[in-house]
């Protein structure tokens, strides 16, 4: 009888026994079924640019490097607005720690960019397919990787370094100087493989972009390493100027229009487009929401809700000559009006943006809803909707090249040669021309502030000009200069035991 049972068992099981557990994929692509055409390589490489959409997010790198300066703050406002767990006041008052969320987001943005480039370069290295743009595409990706690394050493100093996607070990930390040397070589080797004009490769890496990175590295070399590289700065700027592919726009604001792709001044932009380049929540260009009072939507005909948060510090706003400097229109201040010209009312009173801000964080004396002047350098398009502006965000523009070269010349003691460079930029502002004696370092610092407000340049400027640790509006003078580097995020320290934290921070 046992035999009968056994037979039955075997029969029953063998009739039905299917043991195949492979997954059938329907709505995505198995990794080994891609990379068969040129277009497929391009569609993979293009990720490095769509990754950039995160740059302007207020919790990402733009927010980190902007709110930590005097050009922006987000005070705790009445009605419990903008407490946000203290991230904005910690950035602004330089009380950030390795646990700070924005700093983590910034780190993740940069190193995901690096890993992405490594992975794309690996895919290209595995390609058996040959196509005409392969070599220049590889150069582009290498230059983009260099830009991520440049930002990483700027913000964090010594960082983990790898260029090999197949190496799965935890990367070793390299010094700022070692990476500087790598970038110098990488950029010089690849710049010539790229096109000369940003117009020909809009929104992507070009030769002027590569040299802008180099110029910025050299400009900060003295601050970073004590080794001035003013002549190298000038040479890098000249390499761009001599291409003759760039020129200043007559109208300062032409660079920031909702339709700014025609700008001849912009060197590198992040392209936002409400249909094609409009990512998820953390990858939208939403300056309008960050800064405008919730009623200001009726000034501009914006359909999105705005959040009434970010504004400029009073001291920064005071550096403008409001009567004469065309660039002071960067800011909305004073009484506000609807598009129709009628007063812009909130609860029966007209909205009036004041430069004064009560406090950075004081629950019993919070900043009022109308305090702080608001940013309006980028055009707010009528009918704007979908939480993403269609203006392309300007990362670098030609005015910076002229002013960097000018600054290097001044620092070399050649202010006379710098005057025409600064005046070329200043011409369109309505302000009188500089003469050589005007060009003190303090003036260059202030002029850069007015020219590049909210363009991501201020942090480097404040550090290079020795202003980062000094007292300002809601921040006392700092005991040392450790905050010139951000802390390596606590999570990054936990994840990679090879890392040594920056001086002055405890995990």
């Amino acid at each position: 009888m046992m035999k009968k049972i056994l037979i039955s068992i075997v029969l029953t099981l063998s009739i039905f026994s299917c043991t195949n557990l492979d997954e059938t994929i329907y709505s995505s692509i198995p990794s080994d079924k891609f990379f068969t055409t040129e277009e497929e390589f391009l569609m993979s490489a293009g990720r490095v640019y769509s990754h950039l959409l995160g740059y302007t997010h207020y919790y990402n790198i733009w927010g980190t490097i902007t709110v930590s300066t005097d050009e922006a703050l987000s005070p705790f406002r009445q009605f419990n607005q903008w407490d946000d767990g203290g991230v904005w006041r910690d950035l602004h008052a330089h009380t950030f720690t390795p646990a700070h969320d924005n700093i983590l987001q910034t780190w993740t943005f940069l190193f995901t960019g690096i890993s992405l480039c490594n992975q794309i370069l690996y895919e290209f290295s595995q390609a058996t397919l040959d196509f005409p743009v392969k070599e220049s595409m590889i150069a582009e990706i290498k230059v983009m990787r260099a830009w991520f690394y440049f930002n990483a050493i700027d913000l964090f100093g010594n960082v983990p370094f790898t260029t090999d996607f197949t190496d799965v070990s935890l990367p070793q930390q390299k010094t700022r100087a070692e990476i500087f040397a790598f970038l110098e070589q990488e950029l010089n080797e690849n710049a010539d493989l790229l096109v000369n004009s940003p117009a020909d490769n809009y929104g992507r890496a070009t030769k002027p972009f590569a040299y802008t990175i180099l110029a910025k590295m050299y400009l900060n070399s003295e601050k970073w390493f004590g080794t001035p590289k003013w002549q190298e700065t000038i040479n890098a700027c000249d390499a761009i100027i001599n291409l003759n592919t760039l020129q200043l726009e007559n109208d300062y604001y032409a660079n920031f229009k909702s339709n700014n792709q025609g700008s001849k001044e912009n060197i590198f932009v992040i392209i936002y487009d409400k249909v094609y380049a409009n990512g998820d929540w953390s990858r939208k260009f939403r300056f309008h929401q960050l800064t405008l009072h919730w009623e200001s939507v009726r000034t501009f005909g914006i359909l999105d809700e705005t959040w009434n948060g970010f504004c400029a510090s009073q001291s920064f706003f005071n550096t403008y000559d409001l009567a004469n400097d065309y660039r002071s229109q960067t800011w909305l201040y004073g009484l506000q009006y609807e598009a129709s010209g009628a007063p812009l009312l909130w609860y029966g009173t007209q909205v009036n943006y004041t430069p004064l801000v009560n406090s950075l964080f004081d629950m019993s004396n919070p900043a009022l809803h109308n305090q702080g002047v608001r940013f309006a350098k980028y055009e707010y398009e009528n009918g704007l909707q979908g939480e993403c502006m269609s203006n392309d965000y300007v990362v670098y523009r030609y005015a910076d090249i002229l002013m960097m070269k000018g600054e290097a010349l001044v620092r070399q003691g050649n202010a006379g040669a710098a005057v025409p460079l600064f005046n070329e930029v200043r011409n369109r502002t309505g302000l009188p021309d500089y003469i050589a004696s005007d060009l003190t370092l303090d003036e260059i610092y202030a002029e850069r502030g007015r020219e590049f407000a909210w363009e991501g340049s201020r942090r480097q400027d404040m550090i290079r000009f020795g202003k980062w640790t000094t007292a300002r509006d809601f921040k006392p003078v700092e005991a040392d200069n450790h905050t010139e580097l951000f802390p390596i995020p606590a999570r990054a320290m936990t994840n990679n035991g090879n890392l040594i934290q920056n001086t002055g921070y405890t995990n």
Partner: protein
Amino acid sequence: MKIHVKRKFVVILFTTIMLIGSVYSSYAQQKRTVNGKVVEAVSNAPLSGTTINVKGTNTAVISDANGNFAITAASGDVLVFYFMGYVTQEIVLTEQSQINVLLVEELNKLDDVVVIGYGTTTKKEVTGSVSSINSDDFKAGNITDPIQLLQGQIAGLNIIRPDGGDPNGSFQIQLRGVTTMRGGTSPLIVIDGVVGGDLASLSSNEIQSIDVLKDGSAAAIYGTRATNGVILITTKKATPGTSKLEFSSYLAFQTVDKKPDMLTADEFRTALAKYGMGNSADHGASTDWFDQVTQSPLTQNYELASSGGSRDLSYRAGISWTKDQGLVKKSSKESLRTRINISQMLLNDRLKLDYNATYSTAKSAYSDTYILRQAMFHNPTEPVYADENTPAQYGNYYYVGAMEYYNPVAMLEQYEDSGLRKQFTGSINASLSIIDGLKANALVSFTETSERYGHYYGKYYPIGIGNDGYAETYNNHGKYKSLETYLDYSKSFDGHKIQAIAGYSYSEQWSESYDAMNYKFDTDLFSFYNIGAGAALKDGLATLSSSKSSSKLISFFGRVMYNYQEKYLLTASIRQEGSSRFGENHKWGFFPGVSAGWRISKESFMEDVEWVNDIKLRAGFGVTGNQEIGNYQSLAILRKGSSNFYYNGRWLSTYEPGRNPNPDLRWEKKQEFNIGLDASMLNNRLNVNFDYYNRRTTDLLYTYSVPVPPNLYSSTFANVGTIDNSGIELTISGTPYVTKDFKWNITGTISHNTNKLVSFSNNIYAMDALNLGYFGDDLKIYTMRVEEGGSLGNFYGPKFLGFDGNGGATYEDLDGVAGITEADYQVIGNAYPDFIFSLQNTFTYKNFDLSFLLRGSVGNDVLNQTRVYYEGPGYLGTKNILKSSFDSDYTGGAYYSSRFIEDGSYLKLDNITLGYNFLIKSPYISKVRVYLTGQNLLTITKYKGIDPEISLSGLQPGIDYYDFYPRTKTFVLGVRVTF
């Protein structure tokens, strides 16, 4: 043997067979009509509805309202008297023509069948921790989902309805603590052997019994799906030889139990003056926003069930219709649930076929809890509708510009959100008796689900003004096929009893979905039924998506149950199971279970202990898994990127890796040790069940942060952590008092669980602490933290010391550095209760019955989010605040601290039912029952919010969010008629 002897004795004692006037001497085999009456042994009350069947034939009748019956039978036939909950009696017919039978209630339920998956055992033989509940014990009321029947009934099983009185809300079920960080948390539902069933598609009227496999040794037979416990449902079947029609219906009325205690319009004006706000925020009206968006809901339910047939072919069919209105206006749920079961015996009773088919539809109109939040904090001095000052773009609604502040009535009126869900499940089970003791069983089942959801925001919906109407519709089609096949062999010899099974199981699931969104409509009239009409599609701003996925689960399993003289019991099972979801390196898992029992009362030294009827000691160990990790998570795949790449004047798509691949991805693994004791005492009038368990879940799935590079993304879905849970469960039930007319039954349960997060790091993945309980609005803070070695459910933040008298508050400063920073945060509470308990009382007096269920929880802390934000004048002006703001002189802003962590202990009168059974003397109607039920009538608690009974599942338990859907008091009037 003592138990058996005793029971037989009882049976003999109470059963008398009266021979009245054996007038005729007839031929032995000649059929004649036998009359009789069935009565209850203690009360002498007639037992209507008793089935009387001539054994081995299809002849059967049912006793009428007076307990009388008439059946055709011959001398020598055996009459079987069956009435649920009573000891079944068999009587050999002699010459008599009149039989009176006393049926004895089955107090001793040791022979009750316990469903354990792929077979059954008896209560006395079961060795795992299994709890059972029979339809007789089901509570009455507005039961929208059968899972509600288990609430407060089974120790260690915590069931909460987190969405309060929302008719479309679901239930959260947690068995023996948190065992997962990211995997699924629902128990496995098995309906008549079909694994992975949907309980909501079944009416509770169709359920005969529910068995819950609690411990690892019992659940291990279900392998990778069993970690959260297994709930086995047995549906009602026909009683052969009878023909029955049951009709039941109820009406339920609901009222709000408690609503947020915000300022009225007059108080709001007082507050503006008190806090020096001027009168700019006074809009002159008096509006109760909560009343504006809520209604008094009514629920109706109607059910019909027919059953009948012969022993060879019988059927049961049921249909149930329920319309449930929600507390929030426009919300409702309409359910239609039908089922048919056909049983057939073939091949000289060797083959039994069971067909089951269920079809259910649910039509839902959803409410948006955001409306309730807006209504909660809306300024009570604002009118609902506009005056001439409101710009035309806001319709005729009163509009005040402020951040995330919307007119709740506009939200309600300009919004439509509906769903339609249809589900069909068909199964056929064939059971073939091969030789004596050997059976082959095969069950094939098929489920199809189709769902359609759609919502439409009108032109004047206050969020997204300018969208000009926004429509979205989502369709999903799911399919599930399964085969469960096994051999069952049993044999008894010389006091040994063996039962063994061996089987194979295969299941495959598919899901296809389609989603479309469009906006900028010319008119609101289309709702989402003409989605192509919106202009956003042509502008490139509409979205379309579709997807398909599938997964497979295959397993081999076996189990041996052995006992010697029903004294020493042993069960051992294995399941070797593979899932397509697991990574390449871990396709198959092994899930063993073993348990043993010792019935001490059967030992000779216990023979003289009269007051003990039965004592069994149990111990078991088992391994189970959790495979709810989603499809394709381990694979290296490319997906289409959300944004494009501008390349030489055109936009190219982008393709990106979907995730960091993880070929090691596998199930979460739980190992559980359980010891238990079951005892019956004092003539079975007192029953005690005790369990202690210790469960460790390893390989916890979570999205762990990883370094980038070398990884592409900063997180990887991986198996890393370990959680421990241990606890005790005690159930005591008894019949303290019983007389001829009166009976009192009482059941109490109590359970206690402690948990610990042992680790969430290993040599590859490292995580220090996990911040949870994020409050996104304005504060953007984490309110909870889990650390390695610490408890789950800890609230973490500054400790509130008191008010400083100047409008501020002081907090404990741990680091001595001025100001409260994260360095000053500490553990300020824990969401999990010290213990939860329930107490069920049932009183029967003649035809009346009264039962009530009390449920409670002790020692659970609740974070009151509403108070964090709205107790204090921070928002006053733009929003309304809580009345309790006046209790202190605090004038600061919203700030999280231990001030808002409250003791959430509670005692609830969950259910109280008063019923009456009419004795109907009618040839057509055999039984009528009417009942009155109150649900959630009373809550005793110190908690200041709406209700301290809130979600305890997942990693962020115990937070009373301000989006809470209020619970209601429910009054139910029901009737049940049996024809």
